[in-house]
């Protein structure tokens, strides 16, 4: 490894940002068209009958993945060649912290919707406050109970219990946080064998979590808990689904880190990407703990 820079590294011009924007553009126009042609829900009659959305969508997604690969390859090369000063490492770390903060706010909006529904919407639909007329005239049979197994318009659904798969998944994520911390300490202590073992273990736990989550979704659909089964289904799948997407992303990051460990990219002092991945994984765990309590349990 080359000697570390002391000056702040400002990269030369790079084609990747513009290319990544083109990828997003293709995903947006393709995605909108594809969703319109492939879904039948809602009362929306002004539907576009597009038929070409999948091509820009798939092209854009592959394009974006390729661009990010090349972009990060450049960054990794700069890092391995010692162009990254400690100050730049600080920029990356702070940037990651604020990115995670933005994710916290995204989940905050979803949890906010959950609490607003439980504390205000459902009681009001049941006639509380000055809403007696809503209840009497529109949906006289409506029962204001949470979880909402019967929507005002009569759609019914089942409740997902907390103490089956979700409890097992909670344990898996907590253990994965511990194994990841052990791996992190092993990296700092320079114990390569232990690092590889516990990094691998964390990845396996992440994959088990995702498989069980998939199993739970199959089970949910079998018992009638679906995305379009009213507010309970909407919130259940939004919260667990977006969490699941984040776990998927985190697992991919852990796998990338696994291969970078094998290639010997990290040293005691220089392992920002690993640290960022670890923070991200812990963040995803903490979201799950909240989720387990307020979505499944209470």
């Amino acid at each position, binding site marked *: 490894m080359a000697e570390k820079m002391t000056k702040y590294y400002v990269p*030369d011009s790079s084609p990747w940002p513009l290319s990544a924007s083109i990828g997003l553009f293709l995903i947006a*126009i393709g995605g909108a068209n594809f969703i*319109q042609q492939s879904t039948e829900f809602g009362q929306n009659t002004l539907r576009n009958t597009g038929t070409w959305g999948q091509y820009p969508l798939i092209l854009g997604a592959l394009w974006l993945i390729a661009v990010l690969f090349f972009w990060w390859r450049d960054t990794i090369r700069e890092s391995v060649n010692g162009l990254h000063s400690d100050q730049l490492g600080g920029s990356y770390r702070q940037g990651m912290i604020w990115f995670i903060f933005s994710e916290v706010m*995204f989940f905050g*909006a979803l949890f906010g919707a959950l609490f607003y529904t439980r504390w205000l919407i459902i009681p009001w639909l049941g006639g509380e406050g000055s809403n007696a007329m809503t209840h009497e005239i529109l949906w006289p049979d409506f029962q204001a109970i949470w979880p909402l197994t019967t929507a005002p318009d009569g759609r019914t659904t089942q409740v997902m219990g907390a103490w089956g798969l979700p409890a097992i998944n909670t344990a898996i994520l907590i253990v994965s946080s511990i194994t990841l911390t052990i791996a992190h300490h092993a990296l700092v202590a320079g114990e390569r064998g232990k690092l590889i073992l516990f990094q691998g273990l964390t990845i396996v736990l992440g994959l088990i979590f995702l498989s069980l989550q998939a199993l739970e979704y199959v089970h949910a659909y079998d018992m009638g808990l679906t995305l379009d089964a009213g*507010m309970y289904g909407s919130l259940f799948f939004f919260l667990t689904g977006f969490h699941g997407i984040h776990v998927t992303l985190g697992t991919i990051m852990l796998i990338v880190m696994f291969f970078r460990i094998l290639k010997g990219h990290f040293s005691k002092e220089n392992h920002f990407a690993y640290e960022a991945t670890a923070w991200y994984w812990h963040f995803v765990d903490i979201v799950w703990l909240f989720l387990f309590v307020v979505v499944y349990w209470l």
Partner: protein
Amino acid sequence: MTAVAAHDHHDDHHHAPHGLKRWLFSTNHKDIGTLYLWFSFAMFMVGGLMALVIRAELMYPGMQVVDPEFFNQMTTVHGLIMVFGAVMPATVGLANWMIPLMIGAPDMALPRMNNWSFWILPFAFTILIGSVLMSAFAEGNPSAPNFGWTFYAPLSTTYGPASTDLFILSVHMMGISSIMGAINVIVTVLNMRAPGMTLMKMPLFVWTWLITAFLLVAVMPVLAGAVTMMLTDRHFGTSFFDAAGGGDPVLFQHIFWFFGHPEVYIMILPSFGIVSAIIPTFARKPLFGYASMVYATASIALLSFVVWAHHMFTVGMPLAGMLFFMYMTMLISVPTGVKVFNWVATMWRGSITFELPMKWALAFVILFTCGGLSGLMLAITPADFQYHDTYFVVAHFHYVLVSGAIFSIFAAAYYWLPKWSGVMPNTFLGELHFWNSLLSVNLLFFPMHFVGLAGMPRRYADYALQFADYNWWISIGAFWFGISQLIFVAVCVLCAMKKGEKAPASPWEGAEGLEWTVPSPAPFHTFDTPPVVK
């Protein structure tokens, strides 16, 4: 690889990249800042044209120019373009140009991500403007977004046109751009300051942008959540904004305004920073109450998270909720008042001269205060029941956004154009631009207070006959204001072509700060070695 290794970082004078590549692949905060500024100016023109379509239709009662469906698309896209395409990118452009210069940093902290933040925007707005062009010219005139810039459910869910899905994904793109841009600003300010540049020595523009960036990172994800729920309500059968499934359209308004109110401070806080830079320069006195300005900005930002429902007083809320949001909103006028007081106190007994930036800044202080006071009126819950969704609201937010935010952006442009271009902006054209804008903006927006109080509702393509005279004058003001902005095009083009009096490093007599220690125009790389601030 070789490009990376061969790059010699001890050579401060290596040539700048040329041609198209310089702009498309840039990692230079000045070039990216310039891109942001030109882009926002272009969007200002496009959004302005849409405003003129609206005013042409409203010049006389009855329907003359467009059909009501297209009118709705105009009000919607005008608002979206001005908020996300004109004002926000303009202040991001200023941040890009000025923050590294003000804190003595070699560039923004994450230069490639900086370029990505910018280049997402042209694509996002291609999608949005494309849907308007389709509506105007394509076969069958498929509607562009037509539900108002606040895209309330169910107008945007059950009744939204097909283009709503494109709109949703373009909002996602704008959000990605804003979040990355904001993270870049925060990291630059917290991690890249020159030795000796302590937090409480930073110019106020840097402070206000740091706090703006915090607001952006906090609320853009919430907006992303709202539009994602819209998308799934439209296509995947969720019930978030549908009472029949146990959801509530009012939930949309809560989530939207939790984003929306901090958003207005995202647009105005950088203006506070600009004015706090300009007034001390031309009053030749240090800013009065620097620390109180910092604390006032921070308290405005924090309060902005607990006032959102003042946009929803008429929607049906428990009394305690309405009182809470009323008092919290009124509380914001305290730190805002501190700011206005400090600007006036800075000028008190100063030796003031009235160069162009100062003129714009003074107009800002007075007209923004007018907008702030009408905001205070709107905060009073029982009064708001009368004002809600009338032209009084339109008058209020155009006073704070046009004669507020946009005037301060003009002030910033006239103040820093010498630094950006190396030539002084043309004074004759500048004076013409200022006086025409000042007079026309008041003709345009002041009578809206009257028609609003008299009960004229906003967002309609037609109105009752008693509002006819005022609306004629308002439209005259609108066209006058619109044409006046062409003068600014000339000012900018002259500066870009380097036509004009050559600017020294520090063209304004009373100006202080690191940005005036580098030559004009600022060289491609500045502060490669950080300056030491005493």
